[in-house]
């Protein structure tokens, strides 16, 4: 598919850094716009819903809110455009989502628009094609880039760094050593935000079988109270019992659920460190970069350091300052640094 035709006399160049995630899709743009939208897409189920909603497609929290009248998609399951039974529709939903995030960056019609899209490292070729096809309908040139790499690039941590990106569906680990990371530099596991939600739901259900809740409620509770600290204020939330709000202390359950992702993280780090040049292994251990929405769990950096010390003898963990925009900011920086001729060749 040919890319969007560039304006005859461009009045400016707009760079977009886009992070396509399972739970959030974000953009950072060179016009100062930063936007993030929950990665949900919904289409009115029937004529009546369409009349009521007055829209052909809804995105983000609005789609989530109205999902009962929608054919509802979370098109980037596990960070990759979902294939499977609904794959055609999922691809369309993903494409619409890409279009929406470009619109939200508010490009001007008279500007040349170049985008770098952080895609999950393990994305399949058909997902990459769908992402690229969708992007090329809305921008004049687009490139894909591995997501953890762009996080590291955005922070200028290009050599001997371990990047951890805790998303919703996956946690991606990437070893940076001055060159483009290759497959052997990347590990992915599914102990991420969604897993924490499931654990928390399971633990609360075990302890308080009478409490009624949905996974969405659990996710909200987690995002508000998440912590792995030994010392934390008691977490008391209201959950309905037979429809009546009732307070429950879930401090222990939150801590346990959040901690559940730490041992698999150390496993993955161990793997990446163990097969690295022994001379530089200690340096790697002392430069661990923690990003992604899941890195907002309070005390996670300290807990990870503690477990690394226990199992690997050393560890120093740094948090990305803006976990939500870490990927998008890095992608924007790559877009900026990319020479003009590369953009033109990929038009």
């Amino acid at each position, binding site marked *: 598919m040919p890319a969007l035709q560039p304006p005859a006399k461009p*009045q*400016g*160049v*707009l*760079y977009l850094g886009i992070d396509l995630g399972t739970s959030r899709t974000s953009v950072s*743009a*060179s*016009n*100062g*716009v930063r936007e993030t939208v929950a990665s949900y897409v919904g289409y009115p189920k029937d004529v009546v819903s369409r009349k009521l909603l007055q829209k052909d497609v809804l995105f983000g929290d609005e789609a989530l809110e109205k999902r009962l009248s929608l054919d509802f998609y979370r098109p980037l399951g596990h960070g990759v455009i979902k294939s499977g039974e609904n*794959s055609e529709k999922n*691809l369309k939903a993903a494409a619409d989502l890409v279009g929406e995030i470009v619109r939200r960056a*508010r*490009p*001007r*019609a008279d*500007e*040349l628009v*170049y985008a770098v899209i952080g895609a999950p490292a393990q994305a399949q*070729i*058909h997902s*990459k*094609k*769908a992402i*690229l096809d969708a992007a090329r309908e809305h921008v004049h040139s687009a*490139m*894909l*880039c591995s997501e953890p790499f762009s996080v590291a*690039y955005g922070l*200028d941590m*290009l*050599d001997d760094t371990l990047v951890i990106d805790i998303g919703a569906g996956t946690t991606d680990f990437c070893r940076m050593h*001055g*060159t*483009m990371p290759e497959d052997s530099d990347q590990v992915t596991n599914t102990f991420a935000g969604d897993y924490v939600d499931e654990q928390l739901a399971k633990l609360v259900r075990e302890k308080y079988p009478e409490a009624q809740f949905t996974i969405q409620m659990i996710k909200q509770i987690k995002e508000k109270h998440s912590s792995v600290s030994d010392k934390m204020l008691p977490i008391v939330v209201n959950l309905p019992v037979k429809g009546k709000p009732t307070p429950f202390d879930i401090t222990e359950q939150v801590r346990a659920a959040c901690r559940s992702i730490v041992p698999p993280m150390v496993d993955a780090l161990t793997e990446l460190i163990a097969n690295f040049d022994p001379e530089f292994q200690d340096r790697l251990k002392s430069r661990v970069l923690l990003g992604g929405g899941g890195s907002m769990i309070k005390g996670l950096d300290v807990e990870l350091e503690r477990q690394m010390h226990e199992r690997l003898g050393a560890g120093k963990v740094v948090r990305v300052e803006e976990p939500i925009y870490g990927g998008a900011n890095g992608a924007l920086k*790559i877009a*900026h*640094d*990319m*020479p*003009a001729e*590369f*953009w033109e*060749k*990929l038009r």
Partner: protein
Amino acid sequence: MSFQTGGSFRGSAKDLFSPAQIQHLMRVEFDRAQRYNYPLVLLVLGVDRLAQLQDLYGADVKDEIQGGVAGVLRGTTRASDSLGYLVDDRMVVLVPHTPDRGAEVLARRVLEAVRNLRFECDGRVTRVTVSIGGAYNNRKGELSFATMLEVAEEGLRVAREGGGNRYVHSDLYDFFERKRAKDAARVPAPLPAAPVQIPDTALDALGQRIREMFGLGEGDQDLLARIQREVVASALREVQEQVRRALPDEAREQSERIELLERRIAKLSESLGMTEAELQRVLAQRSVDGGVASVYKNVQGLSASAAQAELKKTLMSKIFEANVELRRQIDAAPDARS
């Protein structure tokens, strides 16, 4: 004799529709406009002193002048499909999707374009002018197509009486609408077309005539009835045959053409509707947001003074190469989507 017209002119005045055809076409368009609530403008116009020109130069010249004016109308209104004649050589054009104030604008353009036409008659250059009456559908209250036509024709009359070469909008909608309503109340219901009923009085008169012609008496009632039946039957047959013959192929062709045009109008107004909706959508987006300008006027690229510039340069090349390779893989697997 020759005249200059725009490139869109397509032949002589005879190409235009006949009064009956054009009124039918226009009524269809008018009904559609009322239904879908879009504005349209009707112009009726006549060449000033056309009768005198015909006396001076002959009927051919009159036709050519009419053709030239028709060409101007087509070029100015772009409404060549609903352009035709009324009786007395008046021309009429219906221009859909044109607001009321557009009537005057259009009329002025036509006036000017006609003034610029040149006809060469017997070696002399002659110029003509037209008078125009206009009407539009954008107004409150009842409106029928007949009224719109009357308003425009009234405008034309006033324009002519004022000396020609002008446009008049008579604004007598309510007057003609009331008149039309009154007339409609007076007109008796139309007679049913078939089967043909011969009134008793006519049959009596026929019987009387037959009796006189053949000198029939009271005892010949049966014979009289038979002759009467035969005469009526053969007369009806003859009339029907005449009617059939009177419907020439040409008329059939024309009504097929009208049907075709109607379909075309329907299609055009449908696609116009779609275009308008699309335009609205784009406009809505545009008016909400012209976008936010980037801080960059030009493509940037890595600055030489950036930290680790050499390394970053290599990394950019690698990302680029990876994307080239990705495109290659995608192109190699055309069914990668599935």
